[in-house]
């Protein structure tokens, strides 16, 4: 499903993620594609985007892509070396605008599973790491963006385990559960498209489709009924300038952008 030779699918997704980030806002970011997106945003339209890592680094100047959210590479030239409490409590207080999450499964309400595959908690078919900070960030940050490969195995009617809350069972469910009002899933960036959520039903709704991808591709690769926005656009392709920055400054070794997304 590689759209053209000018850029990789990952480069398209990283740029789509970068475009979501506003200047002068805060984001708690993990490793991998989301961090490449944040770095690209800082080097283009959002120089004052404040990047935080859940383990305690605040507003670093990133020199290389970290492999751990607590590693030295998250702390270079930081404005503050703090702790996980300060970061997570800031999220809970409402000062963190964006976060990025991944997962093994996602459903139409944006609920994410990164704990297990199977039906028996005590003896899962596949044990995955668990929440880590994902549940906290999905619960507390204002806008959650998920990046996830678009297959029926991952876009499922019902996740095997709700590790991190999306809109749970639908409208009002987050608030009823005690989660902060007005927070929740914002966008899903997949290998096929960019999706948001219908304000009324809180169901996933396709907003833009990647170049070369058809509606039928979406339907064939989605395990639930995907809503389509009234005017679905084509996902903006990376500009040559964005690609140059990505390849020369953000990820010169191509650790992320030349990687195909694991399925």
């Amino acid at each position, binding site marked *: 499903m590689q759209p053209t030779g000018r850029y990789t699918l990952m480069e398209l997704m990283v740029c789509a993620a970068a475009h979501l980030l506003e200047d002068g806002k805060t984001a708690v970011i993990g*490793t*991998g594609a989301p961090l490449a997106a944040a770095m690209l945003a800082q080097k283009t339209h959002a120089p004052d985007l404040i990047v935080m*890592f*859940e*383990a*305690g*680094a605040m507003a670093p100047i990133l*020199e*290389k892509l970290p*492999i*751990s*959210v*607590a*590693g*030295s*590479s*998250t*702390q*270079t030239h930081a404005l503050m*070396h*703090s*702790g*996980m*409490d300060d970061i*997570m409590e800031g*999220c*809970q207080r409402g000062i963190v605008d964006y976060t990025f999450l991944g997962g093994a499964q996602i459903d139409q309400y944006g*609920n994410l599973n990164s*704990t297990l595959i199977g039906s028996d*908690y*005590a*003896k*899962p*078919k*596949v*044990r*995955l*790491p*668990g*929440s*880590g*900070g*994902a*549940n*906290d960030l999905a*619960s*507390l940050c204002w806008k959650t963006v998920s990046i996830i490969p678009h297959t029926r195995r991952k876009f499922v009617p019902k996740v095997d*385990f*709700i*590790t*991190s*809350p999306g809109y*749970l069972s639908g409208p009002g*469910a*987050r608030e*009823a*559960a*005690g*989660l*902060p009002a007005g927070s929740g899933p914002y966008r899903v960036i997949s290998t096929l498209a960019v999706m948001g959520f219908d304000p009324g039903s809180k169901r996933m709704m396709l907003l833009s489709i990647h170049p070369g991808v058809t509606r039928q591709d979406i339907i064939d690769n989605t395990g639930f009924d995907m809503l389509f926005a009234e005017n679905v656009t084509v996902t903006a392709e990376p500009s040559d300038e964005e690609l140059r920055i990505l390849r020369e400054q953000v990820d010169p070794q191509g650790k992320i952008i030349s990687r195909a997304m694991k399925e």
Partner: protein
Amino acid sequence: MQEISGELFMPPDVEAARAFFREKSRALTDKRMSVAQAVERFIHDGDYLAVGGFGSVRIPTAVLHEIVRRRYHNLGFCGHCSTHDFQILADGGVLDRCDISYIVGLELRGLSPHGRRLVERGALRTTEWSNAGLGWRYKAAAMGLPFLPARTMLGSDTERYSAAREITCPFTGQKLLAVPALFPDVAVIHVHQADIYGNAQIEGIHIVDRDLARAAKRLIITAERIIPTEEFRRHPELTAIPYWLVDAVCLVPGGSYPAEMPFEYTSDETHMADWVAAEATEESLQAFLDRFIYNTPDFDAYLALNGGANRLAELRAAEPLKRARG
């Protein structure tokens, strides 16, 4: 109210904790000892263990190896942001229960095959939490409280398989999650500098280690270097852990290897990849553990097997964080 069914391994008995802390010695004594002595003296079969750092960052590797080398039984473990630390203990078969916010995973390094096997065959009793949830359990204990309220985990299966409880705010009437205090029997934290009494400095982010040091009933410090107490009195703003919380001080240069140590050395990705590969089968794993732990007397010998001082020098050269002068 959501049904919550997870097992609570460590009930938050603050009165018992107060009684323990009342009796704990606060005497100013030289607490230096070998890792073997510290482990033998302060860790017992069945204990609930917590470690500082973040899985592949600033972990007390020497103590983790010694626990495996001594073939401990039925340890409980706090799987908070744990990657290589959990991997060592899980591979060594010393655990029988685990609070989980993050295990089995190795961040960008993938998953631990043996850790997966262990959980998938039900060999560990497990309870789910989030990173903040477990961190706040340490903080509740550090504060001497039986619980802290939280606004995470609510409505998820993470909550359902946790051992938290839903409560109602007496002021706002809103639903909150109460996470129970966690007082580990023993905690092990690797730091940059300590003095002989246990005063300790941590450079870079402290993650949850300030709270963990206060929550733990017994505390083993491993340190890159021992410095004079006078250095703490010259820079009291850098002290993370005061001596009266500490039971043992072990000098272990390179002690976080193969994990990284901010401002000191980066991680040994080759060795950590070898470790994951060795987990392919039980046989290959046992051979690997024989070589690097069981048939190896101590951490220095383990370092030597991996290139020793030369390898560590390479990793020091590759460390991104440099100390500011003055």
